[in-house]
C-alpha cells in the first residue's frame, strides 16, 4: 500500500466512494482526511455524487413472468346414476363355534367310524335299513313249500338264531330284524317241521367290512311237534334276549346307530383324552 499524500489522495477518495478500499486503506485515508481539511472538503463533494438507490419498480413486471399462472382444468363432474346399486352389504355370517381339540377329535373319529362301518350311506339312507332283511325277500328266498309266509319268516328267524349262535360274528341286524318279526308274531306255532335247507340264503353275516348275505347250508332241523314246548320256549327266550339287544340302538337324528359298535370307540377316545391330560399334568 502506497502512502497517502496530497498527490494521490484524490484517487484514494474516489476508490473510497466506490467502496473499493480495504480496511487498512480506509483507516489510513480517514486519518489523512482528518489531518487535511482540503481533503475533507473533497471527500464531502465526492460523496454528493453518490446516487441513492431510488424506489423504482418495474411497472409491468407481471408481463415478464412465464407460465407462472398454470391453467387448471377442473375435471368434469360426471356422476354415475346407479351408484346406489353398487353398494354391497356383507351378509350376517353364521356364528362360528370353536370346538375344543378333544371334541373335534371325537367328532372326527365318529365320522370316521360312520364311514368305516358303512353306517352312513351316500344316498342318505341308513345301512341298517339297507342291510336288514326285507320281509318279502326272505319269504321269497325261502324255498319252503306249504307254509305261510309269516310262518316261514318265523322259521327263518329261529333257524337263523340257531345258526348265528355258532357264528359269533353274525350281524345283529338280522337278529334284530328277526326278533322284531318274532315280536310281531307272538303267536308262535307249537310245532315246526322245517326243512330248512338253504333257509338262510339271504341271511346277512358280518365279515368285518361289509355286511353281505352269506349262503349257508344248514342241516335239517326238526323241532319237536307240540310236546317240546320247553325247547321252543327256550328259543323264544333267546329271541327275547336278542330282542332286548335291539334297545341298544340309538336314534341319532334320522340314523339308527348300534351302541355296541361304538363301545370300544368311546373307550379308546376316553383313554386318549386321559393320556393327554395326564401328559399335560406331568408337564
Amino acid at each position: 500500500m502506497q502512502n497517502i499524500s496530497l498527490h494521490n489522495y484524490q484517487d484514494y477518495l474516489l476508490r473510497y466512494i466506490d467502496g473499493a478500499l480495504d480496511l487498512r486503506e480506509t483507516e489510513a485515508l480517514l486519518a489523512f482526511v482528518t489531518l487535511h481539511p482540503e481533503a475533507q472538503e473533497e471527500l464531502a463533494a465526492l460523496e454528493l455524487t453518490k446516487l441513492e438507490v431510488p424506489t423504482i419498480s418495474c411497472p409491468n413486471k407481471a408481463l415478464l413472468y412465464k407460465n407462472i399462472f398454470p391453467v387448471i382444468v377442473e375435471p368434469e363432474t360426471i356422476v354415475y346414476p346407479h351408484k346406489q346399486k353398487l353398494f354391497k352389504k356383507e351378509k350376517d355370517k353364521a356364528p362360528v363355534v370353536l370346538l375344543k381339540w378333544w371334541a373335534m377329535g371325537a367328532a372326527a373319529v365318529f365320522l370316521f367310524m360312520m364311514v368305516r362301518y358303512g353306517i352312513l350311506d351316500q344316498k342318505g339312507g341308513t345301512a341298517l335299513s339297507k342291510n336288514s332283511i326285507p320281509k318279502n325277500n326272505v319269504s321269497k328266498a325261502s324255498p319252503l313249500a306249504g307254509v305261510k309266509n309269516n310262518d316261514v319268516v318265523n322259521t327263518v328267524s329261529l333257524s337263523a338264531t340257531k345258526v348265528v349262535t355258532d357264528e359269533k360274528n353274525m350281524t345283529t341286524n338280522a337278529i334284530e330284524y328277526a326278533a322284531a318279526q318274532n315280536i310281531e308274531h307272538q303267536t308262535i306255532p307249537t310245532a315246526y317241521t322245517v326243512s330248512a335247507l338253504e333257509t338262510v340264503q339271504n341271511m346277512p353275516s358280518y365279515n368285518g367290512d361289509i355286511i353281505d348275505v352269506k349262503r349257508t347250508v344248514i342241516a335239517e332241523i326238526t323241532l319237536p311237534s307240540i310236546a317240546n314246548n320247553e325247547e321252543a320256549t327256550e328259543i323264544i327266550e333267546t329271541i327275547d334276549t336278542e330282542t332286548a339287544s335291539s334297545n341298544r340302538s340309538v336314534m341319532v337324528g334320522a340314523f339308527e346307530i348300534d351302541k355296541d359298535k361304538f363301545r370300544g370307540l368311546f373307550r379308546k377316545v376316553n383313554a386318549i383324552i386321559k393320556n393327554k391330560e395326564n401328559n399335560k399334568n406331568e408337564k
Partner: protein
Amino acid sequence: MTEKDYNESVLLYADNVYRFIVKNLRHTEDAEDIVQSAFEKLWMHKDSVEPLKAKSYLFTVAYHLLIDHTRKAKRISLQESFENDTQAAYQENKALKKVLHEALATLNETQRSLVLLKDYEGYSYEEIGEITKLTTDQVRVYLHRARLKLRSYLISPQQVL
C-alpha cells in the same frame, strides 16, 4: 436455468434492471421495452445461463440494448427527453437530487452506466467490466472521471443552491 429460476429472476432483478435503464434513458416506456427485451433474451437462453449468473446476464443484455437504443436515438437530446418526461413514475423533490440527476444526464452513456451499476447495484470494477465488456482499469478510470465530472457540476457556481 429452469422456468422457476427464470421467474425468480424476474421477481428479484426486474426492478433493478428497470431502474438502471430508466435512470440512463430517463424515459419509462423505452426503459420498459428494454427490460422486456432483456428478459425475453434471458428466457430464450435460459438453458445456457446458470441461475447465479442471471443478474449479470440481465444487466449485460440491458446495457447493450441501452447502448443500441441511445445510438439509434442520438438525434434526440437527452435533455429534451428528460424535460419531456413529465409523466415519469419517479419524482425527485429534493433540489440536490434533481441537480445530481441533471449532472448525471451530462455524462455519456458509458460513464452513466458505470455510475449506475456502481451505486445502484453495488457491482465491483470486475463485475462492471464483465457487463460493459471493459477492463477493470477502464472501468475504474471511466468511473472516476464520471465522479469528478458530477462533482464539478454540483459545485459549479450556477448549481450552488
